[in-house]
């Protein structure tokens, strides 16, 4: 004991300081662990983080205007739109030069499509102009101002120039503004005309209906999970198959089956009419509205609620309930004060699963939702595959992602994420 002070740091068997030797061993271990998860990490990064990041980036990306019109944009930036006069010849000359290059690379129509999101008519303006401009000689044919206005009267329209000027920056918040029913105009930020406001409404509807679907899943799933957890193994296994059965059927088949059930000439209405509960000319409307979406989605998402509840309920000792009753609790008190609190982690896990799944649901609302039961995801799909306004679709997606994260954070604050159990 007395000689430790003068031998310095503790040495390992090979003479290196023990601390360093230990760190080295740990490092090797860590590297090995990292190597083991590396395939998954790389997979997640390439197939998940990169594409999503790339897609989200499109919601602010706007370099097409500047790249297609590299000479025009700097000149146009100096133009003062408030004078009410058209840009001067220099701008038209630059535009001619830019357009000749753009038409050659077939970029002018892309630009037209981009600007048409902001001002209707841009698309054909660029397409029609391109056909003529390709024949121009940029040096011999000057001046161009008259020529442009001859070519299409819109080139003499100040609104066209204002729109190009407003949307010429490399990055834009315009898509995000559009996503919340606002717009970027030459005079600043303004709301969309009332006749075009729909997206905020859809966001709210998506959230409210997802909550309703989640609640009905809890109400329907809780008793089922309780029965599953309390029946003898034989019967509960049978019941489990019934719960899992929908999982083995295609989503489309299940949704279409609801169509057959719920439509006006469908099974449920036929039975009600046959029983005399409903007049033949006053059949119930249960599909192509919110009711249809809620019923079909509750059915489809129910297993995601039952399974976590079931596995949590299984771990609850029946003796707790018996103890509560022997201490004088009524059935209700025993359930509400003793049993229910222990199932909250299962409800929490199921709710998060169902809510997050339903907020991004697309195909079921599309088929049974009609006009009042569609979600924001249907609009995102429209902008991705039909209108090709990927910037707006990305902005909508980013907002949806942010909403989910905020709700998750709120859940963590209120209930606590440690309190979620899948089993």
């Amino acid at each position, binding site marked *: 004991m007395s000689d430790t002070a003068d031998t310095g740091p503790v040495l390992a068997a090979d003479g290196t300081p023990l601390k360093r030797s230990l760190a080295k061993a740990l490092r090797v271990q860590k590297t090995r662990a990292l190597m083991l998860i590396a395939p998954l990490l790389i997979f997640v990064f390439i197939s998940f983080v990169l594409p999503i990041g790339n897609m989200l980036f499109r919601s602010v990306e706007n370099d097409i205007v500047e790249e297609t019109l590299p000479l025009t944009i700097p000149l146009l930036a100096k133009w003062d739109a408030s004078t009410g006069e058209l840009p001067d010849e220099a701008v038209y000359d630059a535009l001619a030069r830019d357009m000749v290059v753009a038409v050659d*690379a077939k970029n002018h129509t892309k630009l037209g499509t981009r600007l048409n999101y902001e001002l209707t008519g841009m698309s054909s303006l660029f397409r029609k102009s391109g056909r003529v401009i390709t024949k121009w000689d940029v040096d011999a044919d000057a001046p161009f101002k008259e020529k442009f206005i001859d070519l299409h009267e819109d080139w003499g329209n100040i609104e066209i120039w204002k729109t190009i000027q407003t949307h010429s920056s490399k990055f834009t918040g315009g898509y995000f503004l559009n996503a919340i029913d606002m717009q970027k105009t030459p005079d600043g930020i303004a709301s969309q005309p009332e006749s075009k406001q729909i997206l905020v*409404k859809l966001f709210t509807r998506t959230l409210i209906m997802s909550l309703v679907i989640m609640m009905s899943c809890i109400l329907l799933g809780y008793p089922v999970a309780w029965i599953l957890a309390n029946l003898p193994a034989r019967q509960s296994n049978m019941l489990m198959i019934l719960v899992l059965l929908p999982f083995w059927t295609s989503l489309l088949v299940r949704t279409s089956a609801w169509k057959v059930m719920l439509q006006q000439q469908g099974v449920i209405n036929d039975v009600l009419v046959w029983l005399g509960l409903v007049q033949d000319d006053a059949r119930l409307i249960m599909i192509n509205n919110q009711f249809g979406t809620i019923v079909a989605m509750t059915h489809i998402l129910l297993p995601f609620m039952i399974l976590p509840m079931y596995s949590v309920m299984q771990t609850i000792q029946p003796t707790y309930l018996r103890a509560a009753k022997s201490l004088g609790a009524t059935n209700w008190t025993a359930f509400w004060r003793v049993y229910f609190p222990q199932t909250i982690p299962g409800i929490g896990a199921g709710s998060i699963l169902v809510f997050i799944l339903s907020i991004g649901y697309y195909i079921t609302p599309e088929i049974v939702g009609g006009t009042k039961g569609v979600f924001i995801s249907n609009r995102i799909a429209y902008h991705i595959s039909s209108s090709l306004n990927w910037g707006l679709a990305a902005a909508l997606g980013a907002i949806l992602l942010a909403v989910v994260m905020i709700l998750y954070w709120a859940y963590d604050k209120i209930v606590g994420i440690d309190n979620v159990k899948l089993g």
Partner: protein
Amino acid sequence: MKLTKTLLATTALTVFAGAVTAEEMTIVSWGGAYSASQLKAYHEPYSEKTGVTILNDTSSAEAVAKLRAMSEADNVTWDVVDVVAADAMRLCDEGLALEIDPDKDLAAAPDGTPASEDFGELLVSPCFIPQIVYSTAFGYRTDLVGDTPPSKICDVFDLEAYPGKRSLEKRPINNMEWALLCDGVAKEDVYDVLATEEGQDQALAKLDTIKDSVVWWSAGADTPQLLADGEVVMGSTYNGRLFSVIEEQKQPVAMLWDAQVFDLDGWIIPAGLSEERKARALDYIMFATDTQRLADQAKYISYGPARLSSAPLVGKHAELGIDMAPHMPTDPENAKNTFLYNYEFWADYRDDIDAKFQAWLAK
């Protein structure tokens, strides 16, 4: 070392598997009866003639978005794509489709008429190779409309004479035109009116009168199903779908051809194919759009061939043995009052009017 070798070998294999071999081409279309008619009329004879294996893909509904994604990833896996003319225009605008020269790349008619004249006005975009003329028209349940079946487009808006639900497509195109037409706007003024705010409001106000009785569809198969189930008394869809409900499934449904909207469907070749694949795609197009082949397709589906010279060759249905000519949208008896889809107008106004239309729907 061994690991590196294995990895290299796998990568090489993947690359080889990914590259299309010389004997294969991928053709994209709409699926269902339509793809089946192309298979019989074009693909099978072409494979027989050249030995090329044709792989079918049914992604036409998302063709523009997918081609854009493929082109951004620099990996175009499609060789020939079937799209509607409006989509062909957009693909051309985006530089995603190959421009063709009709007289060089397409076969002349048997009498020597050059392709550019034979197709005539249907060559609406430099990238578009027309194949068929189809129309969006109405079908109605013969047993649910009383003694006087609907004969005019405005009967769709007449809830008193024809009570019950009708199905309309969940987009403004066609519906807005029909609404204006039935609100007293002259046919030649429809697009001028629709270009104004007031005109758009007018069309929506007219649609408002039947809004509560409309089932909105988004897939072409919806209306035939709704008619067969008796969910709606009348509904719009593509005329070929109605033909199969009426003649193949023998449902109590009949056609209301008034104010049918003509549209075109045809081929495009994606831009950025390798020389070898491009040559093969062009060879296929040359074969599949000649006069006889276009007429052959009409044996299987009631869409009109896009060539003038094919019309006289349209015969009987291959299986049902009925005359196809009276079922064609272009038949003079059916084409008394028609509309042609206005491509330029909708390219400009699509986004704007669609936003309004969707907002109106959600009200």
